[in-house]
């Protein structure tokens, strides 16, 4: 238990006495890991983050960050955490450097320390060249990097990232992931992030919790979750009309066989190794394999499996929709 950096116990938040945004959520985040909250918009991710960073009070339950209670020791929590918000919060009229110094001032970091740290962080996120330019001239990716630098100014032990790549194009998103990994390596803190991009959770997180309608549906590493699905899917067709389902099922590592028209959908662990065994077994029994493909499960399938639906974007509060719109507009440089 000592290695747990964040512990949430029955964390609940109800808005307007009826809308349950987060519903008795329990989870633990271990020291040094990247923990991801994955879910569609409106699932309760941002509400959870806002409670953990002491901005929103839980209706019920509580949580601790580095052993400090978010209700009783909010001041201590604020000292040891950093935040990279979903929105671009940097001031447009100020330069990148001025913004970073402003963040430092909010933590009461003495100027002689903050000047040095600001330059160092801006260097890490490769904004040195633009540090004296007004933020209004920055692109979406640059703004996101600036937010990263600001979030790290107080050398936090836990960094919260709320939808760190919202509104960025695919390339910029991948680049941002690299910056996050780099900063994690440099400062070795624990990361708690929310996302509704499956690839993002897959690439960055050590462990993820899938959240839907305010409840955690499942927790585990991306690999575990994918393996829990029952492994890879081998799809094959044979020349003959005979039904070979029974035969295939007996092969080692094969878990399930489904026949769809002239195709067999075979769920198997370690698909790369099992597929040749299947071909071999079929050949021995006089069947000729005409087509074969192997699919690795993605978080998409995991998500579908646990929530019974694909990622949806529809349900969203008015307020967060507005915030999204502003963020997106700024990401696109208006």
């Amino acid at each position, binding site marked *: 238990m000592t290695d747990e950096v964040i512990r949430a116990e029955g964390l609940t938040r109800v808005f307007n006495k009826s809308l349950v945004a987060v519903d008795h959520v329990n989870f633990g985040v271990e020291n040094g890991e990247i923990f991801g909250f994955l879910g569609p918009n409106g699932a309760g991710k941002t509400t959870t983050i806002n409670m953990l960073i002491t901005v929103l009070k839980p209706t019920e339950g509580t949580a601790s960050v580095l052993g400090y209670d978010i209700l009783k020791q909010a001041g201590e929590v*604020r000292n*040891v955490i950093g935040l990279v918000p979903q929105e671009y919060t940097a001031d447009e009229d100020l330069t990148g450097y001025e913004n970073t*110094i402003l963040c430092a001032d*909010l933590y009461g970091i003495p100027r002689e320390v903050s000047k040095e740290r600001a330059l160092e962080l801006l260097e890490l996120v490769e904004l040195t060249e633009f540090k004296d330019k007004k933020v209004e001239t920055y692109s979406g990716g640059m703004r996101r990097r600036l937010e990263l630098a600001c979030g790290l100014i107080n050398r936090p032990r836990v960094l919260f990232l709320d939808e760190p790549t919202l509104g960025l194009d695919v390339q910029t998103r991948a680049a941002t992931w690299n910056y996050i990994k780099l900063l994690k390596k440099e400062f070795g803190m624990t990361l708690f992030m929310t996302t509704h991009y499956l690839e993002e959770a897959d690439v960055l997180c050590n462990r993820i919790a899938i959240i839907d309608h305010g409840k955690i549906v499942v927790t585990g590493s991306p690999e575990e979750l994918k393996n829990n699905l029952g492994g890879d899917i081998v799809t094959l067709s044979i020349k003959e009309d005979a039904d070979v389902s029974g035969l295939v099922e007996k092969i080692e590592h094969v878990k399930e066989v489904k026949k769809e028209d002239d195709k067999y959908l075979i769920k198997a662990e370690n698909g790369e190794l099992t597929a040749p065994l299947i071909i071999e077994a079929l050949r021995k029994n006089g069947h000729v394999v005409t087509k074969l493909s192997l699919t690795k499960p993605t978080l998409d399938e995991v998500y579908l499996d646990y929530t019974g639906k694909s990622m949806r974007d529809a349900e969203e509060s008015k307020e967060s929709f507005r915030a999204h719109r502003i963020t997106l507009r700024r990401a696109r440089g208006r």
Partner: protein
Amino acid sequence: MSESNSNNSRSVFHGLWALTNRELKKWYKEPILLLMIIIQPAIWMGLFGKAMNISAIFTNNPITLPPDLNLPPQLKAQIEQSFSNITSQMMRNTFGTADYFSYMAVGMISFVVFFTTMFSGMSIVWDRRLGFLNKVLSTPVSRGVIIFSKVLSTAVRSIIQASIVLLIAWLLGMQFSPSFNPLSILGVFAAIVLICFGLSSLFLTIAIRSTRQETQMAIMNLLNLPLMFTSNALFATSMMPDWIQVVAKINPITYTTDAMRQLLLYNTDITQLMIDFAYLGVFAAVFTSIGLILSWRYLSK
């Protein structure tokens, strides 16, 4: 890696200057904003103050006795002179000065200050919507400091804007009282600071949980003209019906404007000046306290 933060040396007020300065920077880096807020009272002074110059009714139309009145010319001149004295006395009794333009120019200073304080409420709504407020709330900055930085920046802005308006008024021919001295200016600034503390705390309190600027705009539109017209900013309260006089008596703008007139235009009535400052002091203390207390409770939802 993550060394403990050096919190020991940090005061409760850390971040106050940083946040205040942020507000001010946004303002002086946008000269158009400053220009707009100056142009409006300049237009009012130029058009309204000069065109509706009530004292001109008398001074531009000197009373001439009918020529068929059979009086010695000397007596006639005397009568005409005393009529002119009476009208100027009437102006003095109503407005405290014979020059209406000077009277309303000081009112314009109140006007500018009042408008500046109204926007402090808008800025917190804006910060909330842009996510900046959330960001600040997650840092160890005191909640009171978040509100107070807005109050403080409003006061600084108001003083600068009021000085510019005063300068314009002087260029347009405002007449200062014979007792006017540099200390009077400091007194004017003090009155402005007090009204700013009170009013911007009030508007911030109204906006503290709001997420819509539209609501704020509606509140501002509802309040601005009624509050201006139920004060002595443009007209003497003695000219108003009784019920408006009651409103004017509790309207803090009345006291700010009167304090400034006492200092700039009139032969300062010390007792009245003291009453003005006492009222403004209480007003500022009460609303600033309310604002600070509510910010602790309601800034986080």
